């Protein structure tokens, strides 16, 4: 269902100003409104704690090493699972794009499974893999696999036939064909697929950690919720949002650099 990549047009020209501080406008204004709402006394502290309190909690958790442990565990799972899912997605996407036989054999099953939101796979995977590390890494891998396989398929299919014909004329061997034609021609679309898969994998990981984990950002929030520690929950919201944002930004930057030669 989540088949469409989400183009995110910036809703405001306000954030695209020339001032170097412009990117800070969004978080700062949110913090200001948040702090003002707390100071107005409209919300009791059981409902909304001020950002200063959340910052203090984050500071204390960072001091005790707890925050680093949660973030480290989450990022490790993300990296490990994403690497597996990405490799499998690239290989599978390229295979069904290049071979008509592979496409006919595997695309119906692939497209059927694609209809299921990855989150709905969580209960099945818990029964098979338990609730420990293998489960979390596997769910991240599955979340990453589908968008990457689809993007790779589209990218490889999109390479003009004529280019392959030129390669045939020059009797290019397969390794050269991959290195000099296939990879340069498909890199932009595949990178977009990788970026979308990365942010999606992050969301699914947080969901999986909310359900079952002994560490990680999601588990930190879930524990905070059960113990009514609003500051911890809000700290988790801030951290998960920040990590998601930074992952997307980092991936966009890589995408921009890798495709610079195209526009030049």
């Amino acid at each position, binding site marked *: 269902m989540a088949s469409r990549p989400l183009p995110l*047009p910036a809703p405001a020209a*306000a954030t695209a100003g020339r001032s170097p501080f412009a990117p800070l406008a969004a978080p700062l*204004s949110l913090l200001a409104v948040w702090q003002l709402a707390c100071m107005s006394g409209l919300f009791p502290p059981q*409902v909304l704690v001020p950002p200063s309190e959340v910052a203090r909690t984050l500071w204390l958790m960072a001091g005790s090493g707890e925050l680093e442990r949660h973030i480290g565990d989450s990022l490790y799972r993300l990296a490990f699972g994403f690497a597996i899912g990405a490799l499998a997605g690239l290989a599978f996407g390229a295979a069904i794009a290049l071979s*008509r036989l592979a496409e*006919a054999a595997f695309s*119906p099953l692939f497209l059927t499974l694609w209809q299921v939101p990855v989150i709905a796979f969580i209960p*099945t995977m818990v029964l098979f893999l338990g609730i420990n590390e293998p489960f979390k890494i596997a769910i991240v891998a599955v979340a990453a696999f589908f968008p990457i396989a689809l993007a790779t398929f589209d990218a490889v299919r999109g390479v003009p036939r004529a280019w392959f014909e030129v390669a045939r004329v020059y009797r290019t061997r397969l390794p050269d064909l991959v290195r000099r034609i296939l990879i340069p021609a498909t890199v932009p679309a595949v990178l977009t697929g990788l970026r979308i898969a990365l942010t999606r994998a992050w969301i699914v990981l947080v969901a999986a950690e909310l359900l079952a984990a002994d560490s990680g950002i999601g588990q930190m929030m879930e524990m905070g919720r059960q113990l009514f520690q609003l500051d911890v929950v809000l700290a988790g*919201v801030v951290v998960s949002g920040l990590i998601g944002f930074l992952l997307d930004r980092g991936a966009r930057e890589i995408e921009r650099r890798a495709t610079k030669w195209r526009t030049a």
Partner: protein
Amino acid sequence: MNALLSRRAPRLALGLIAPALLLAGWQWLATSGGASAVALAPLGSVAAAFVELVGNGTIFGDIVATLTRAFTGFAIGAGLGVATGTATAVWPLLNRVIAPLLNALRQVPMIGWLPLIGLWFGTGEGSELIVVCLGAFFPAMLNTHAGIANVEQRYLDVGEVFRFTTGQRFRRILLPAAMPLILTGLTQALAFAWIGTLASELLMGAGGGLGVTLQTAQVQQRLDVILVTVAITAILGFAINQIIARVRREVLRWQPASI
């Protein structure tokens, strides 16, 4: 080989091989009594679970509950999103004020809000609906804003010439010109509402619904029930996609075929 593959029947048969092998391997593992057989349910029991769930009607109750939640949340969330997107596109001042706020808020993934919403509103059906609304809101808002804010100036100039009133301008220029992007936003909003519904049901487990059934079945180790429910999720997701595609074609019929 290629001639064979271009025909419909062999293609179809070929496509069935992988699922058939999967099922055969599944059945073999489930009945061979190895270590993994504890988790695996033989195909017979999956079919039995399907008959049971259909027979006592629980599955229909779940489908209705999930679809109701998804579409209610979509209607509220996407409605507010389109309204907000329109407002921020028409009044730059409003945009200046609230766009940074919304921009910061939308960095948090929909599921990241779950614990906070659970803390504020409890883990009931209301909280599930809020998650769905939240998921539908942002894509609808962003795309509506982009659609209306980027209407070509020459269209607006024509409106000037005809001395359109504000209402006319909105109804006859802005809205039709922005319609493709608004529809894209609504499409994404529905997809997010659908995922948000299943996620919130799975994580909060309140009321009825397919996600709640999945959650209960996981606790009871009923893989057969899980598989039936996942299959129904897939079918519903596919049906929703088809409806979206059809609506899009209908509404945008006047457009050149490229969009």
